[in-house]
């Protein structure tokens, strides 16, 4: 099968818990996440950003893009991150920008994952013609060059936040659909699914109550990857001036910074904060994603070598431990 060959390395990550009974891996999965350092750091950073985004109207009441001070002020006690070439407070713009960026990122992430789940489960469960057709559509969307497609769609659709979300979902769902399909396929072939089919359960129930819970970890990994994609792609689209330039978001902040020549005049403080925020959010999500991978795939976990082991021969010990 053509799609199996194109499978990405990460897609095999969740196979281990799938074989276990339903409830147990989930509990140990959450426990594994809570004791994983990467996951904790990632979740702490995300929580911080979400709190700041929620509190933005309290921290900086009023319209963040209004002009409050002299233009291009360097960071000082009053304006912690300085002001833009228009005289807007950079910190207020950055804090308020979190709202739109996180909202779009999360919406895009959840929507793409949802479509991916539907397509992947339907492909895997029904098989045959439906699988062929859905896989074909998925692969076509995967192959169409993402960024140019984004640009073309954004150029034809009326500008606005809804358009940005729609366009990002259209270009983003296919990757998750493929990953989830291959995972669902391997669960579809398990005995308990066959038992459910024989006992006459309805298709919807088998897909969502039997198969879906067993791929929870890979769904989570997909979701995180989609949110990262959403935030990054939104920023890129807005940076190109193809988003809704009237909203305050990290991408638009950077668009205006570029537009007003912030770097050419040396106002690095206008340009740095939004980019760092995007990076921190993406990094935090990536950390959680790696943690999910590590918790569910024992081979990727750090091996706790006993202290007595000689330092000179790490490789062979590791390989026997991995088995």
């Amino acid at each position, binding site marked *: 099968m*053509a799609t199996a*060959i*194109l499978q*990405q*390395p*990460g897609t*095999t990550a969740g196979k281990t818990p799938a074989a276990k009974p339903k409830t147990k891996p989930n509990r140990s999965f959450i426990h594994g996440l809570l004791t994983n350092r990467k996951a904790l750091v990632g979740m702490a950073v995300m929580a911080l950003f979400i709190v700041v985004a929620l509190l933005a109207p309290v921290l900086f009441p009023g319209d963040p893009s209004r002009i409050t001070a002299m233009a291009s002020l360097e960071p000082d006690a009053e304006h912690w991150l300085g002001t833009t070439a228009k005289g807007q407070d950079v910190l207020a713009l950055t804090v308020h920008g979190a709202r739109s960026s996180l909202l779009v990122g999360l919406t895009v992430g959840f929507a793409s994952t949802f479509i991916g789940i539907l397509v992947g489960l339907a492909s895997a469960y029904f098989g045959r013609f439906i699988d062929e057709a859905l896989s*074909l559509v998925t*692969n*076509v969307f995967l*192959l*169409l*060059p*993402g*960024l*140019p*497609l984004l*640009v*073309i*769609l*954004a*150029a*034809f*659709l*009326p500008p606005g936040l809804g358009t940005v979300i729609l366009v990002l979902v259209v270009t983003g769902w296919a990757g998750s659909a493929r990953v989830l399909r291959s995972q669902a396929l391997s669960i579809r072939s398990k005995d308990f699914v066959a038992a459910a089919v024989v006992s006459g359960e309805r298709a919807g129930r088998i897909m969502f109550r039997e198969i879906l819970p067993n791929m929870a970890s890979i769904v989570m990994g997909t979701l995180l990857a989609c949110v*990262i994609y959403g935030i*990054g792609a939104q*920023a*890129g689209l807005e*940076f*190109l*001036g*193809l988003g809704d330039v009237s909203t305050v978001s990290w*991408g638009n902040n*950077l668009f205006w910074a570029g537009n007003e020549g912030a*770097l*050419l005049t040396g106002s*690095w403080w206008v*340009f740095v904060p*939004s*980019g*760092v925020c*995007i*990076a*921190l959010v*993406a*990094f935090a999500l*990536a950390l959680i994603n*790696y943690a999910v991978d590590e918790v569910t795939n024992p*081979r*990727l976990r*750090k*091996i706790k070598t006993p202290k007595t082991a000689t330092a000179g021969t*790490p*490789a*062979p010990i*590791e*390989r026997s431990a*991995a*088995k």
Partner: protein
Amino acid sequence: MRFILRRLGFYLVAFWASITLNFLLPRFMPGDPVSRMFARSQDRMQPEQIEALRRLLGVDDRPLWEQYAGYLQNIFTGQMGVSISRFPAPVTEVISSQIGWTLLLGGTALVIAAVVGNLLGIVAAWRRGGAIDSALPPVLVFIGSFPYFWLAMGALYLFGVVLGWFPIRHAFTDGLEPAFTWEFIGDVGAHLVLPALTIVLVSIGGWMLGMRNTMIATNSEDYITMAEAKGLRPGRIMLRYAARNAMLPSVTSFGMGLGFVVGGALLTEVVFAYPGVGYQLLNAVQGLDYPLMQGLFLTITAAVLLANFLVDILYVRLDPRVRSN
């Protein structure tokens, strides 16, 4: 052979889908792109040109299927209309003058990133827990989390504006005549360093981690243990036994990466004002040059599909399992 034909069929379907998307977009979008465009460039356009454009974008009274047939015919005879922003140059001419730069920039960056990234991944997986394995991935993942264009602008500012080590825009110095002289090639090289370097920096982490994770799985295979038991040199086991068998996903990524070369370098080209197809695509969007926009999108898609098809053929050569079933 069956595999190749199957893939070929798939790529044809994909290409047909993108042509159809191109055909349908201007016809079903809310608002009328043609009138938007006319409002902007009415005075510069000839009547027959407006007529041709109306037909291209579907503002004529023929039934849809007839328009579609005409559109397909135009595409396959290479008639993509005339560029509005660069009137009267045909779209095909504009594209062919720029695709070379894109291929140069994207190709250089892709090859460097793939080779270095895979080598790092191989070494990281072979020495699990060593310096490269523990220090590099977090750093690269962190760099990779920055928005690409942001890093590119930062590099432009730091190395182009502040330090002045590299030229900050375009593919060669203005006024220099393109020719195969050392002076010109050196100039093009100097303009290539910053854009290519930024692409390598953000993409290398993906290559390294992908290779590392596949190779960790390969390392626990029995034939590796066997090779060790035979007393082969570690370097030979690492490269000829483990890495060789872990290469396949990287080959697939390389095919996908070739897609990035043509389409994904858009942001790079925009930041560095590099005169490739991505930069032109954004210009076309801003100038409401719909024929050029569509032509560019089709060209990019065709290039991506072709690259992936070539990788599939390579795959048949590399992986005997594909040949047997």
